[in-house]
């Protein structure tokens, strides 16, 4: 059974806040790239002292294509008192960006954004303006392409042509998905078939 968190491929607007339940107390909000920096700055002033994680999601056929997600945490304001302890506020800020769009870096607000932004740059190819040292962090420095993009050939650009063994296509790989690469066409084909049936 598919997870309730899985966005349907044939769905029109893949928008996590409308599809996914909030995880416990997490509040989700969506911000435009132009307002992102101001919003995050005000959240920081508001007491969100911790940037737990910064990631991205590639929705490929959606526009804007990527979502950059900021996971923020505000700890309970008071130290004393049992009731206050364990009641932190969580906030997820989503920001939709296109492939060539640039986002402002938040490295100066939260130091934890440093490596996280490098990771998003490395794996998704999104550029953060104002980052002091935007290098690859996971892949080798001379790597080509950004592996977590949905249209990246799964077996890597160099091995694209070698055939995939037949048994590998039978497991959890959706029928009709090509061995590697060309994922966009396969997804579009799937959407088309779903609409026709």
């Amino acid at each position: 059974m598919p997870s309730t968190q899985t966005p349907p491929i044939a769905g029109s607007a893949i928008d996590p806040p409308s599809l996914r339940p909030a995880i416990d107390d997490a509040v989700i909000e969506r911000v435009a790239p132009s307002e992102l920096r101001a919003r995050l700055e005000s959240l920081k002033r508001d007491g969100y002292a911790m940037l737990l994680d910064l990631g991205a999601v590639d929705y490929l056929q959606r526009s804007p294509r990527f979502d950059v997600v900021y996971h923020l945490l505000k700890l309970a304001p008071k130290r004393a008192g049992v009731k206050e302890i364990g009641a932190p506020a969580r906030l997820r800020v989503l920001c939709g960006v296109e492939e060539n769009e640039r986002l402002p870096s938040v490295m100066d607000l939260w130091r934890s954004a440093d490596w996280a932004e490098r990771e998003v740059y490395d794996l998704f190819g999104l550029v953060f303006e104002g980052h002091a040292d935007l290098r690859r962090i996971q892949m080798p420095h001379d790597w080509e392409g950004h592996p977590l993009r949905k249209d990246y050939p799964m077996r890597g650009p160099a091995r694209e042509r070698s055939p995939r063994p037949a048994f590998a296509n039978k497991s959890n790989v959706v029928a009709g998905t090509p061995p590697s690469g060309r994922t966009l066409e396969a997804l579009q084909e799937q959407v088309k078939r779903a609409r026709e049936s």
Partner: protein
Amino acid sequence: MLARVDEVARWAQSSSVWPLTMGLACCAIEMMTVTSSEYDIARLGSEVFRSSPRQADLMIVSGRVAQKMGPVVKRLYDQMADPKWVISMGACASSGGIFDNYAIIQGVDTIIPVDVYVPGCPPTPDGLLYAVNLIQQQIREGGRGGIVASA
């Protein structure tokens, strides 16, 4: 006379195959197990896992080799003094295993020569012991390379 000395040297060599302390992934857990009293790799004279490649005779590639790890493994192999042997432990080290993707080197034998391949995911500690046995056999008989450790 020379033949006899040669035999003694081989006997000594095959009875003290010291592996390099190097664990790459989950196979490394099974590799550590062979040093326990249950399996006791000391019976073969290989209990001394060396932390320096310059003192090691045997490299056990215990797990998948990431593209980024490849140069490191190659460098460690180059730093080991001759004569040296390599065991490719498990499906991932031997062929990439289930990781048929951009990030994993499809078989460590594409970057360094392998003497014994141990099948399994992960192989049992017995499997690894048997591979060390085969390495010893190779040393005593003077052969090299490309053996699959299967029963």
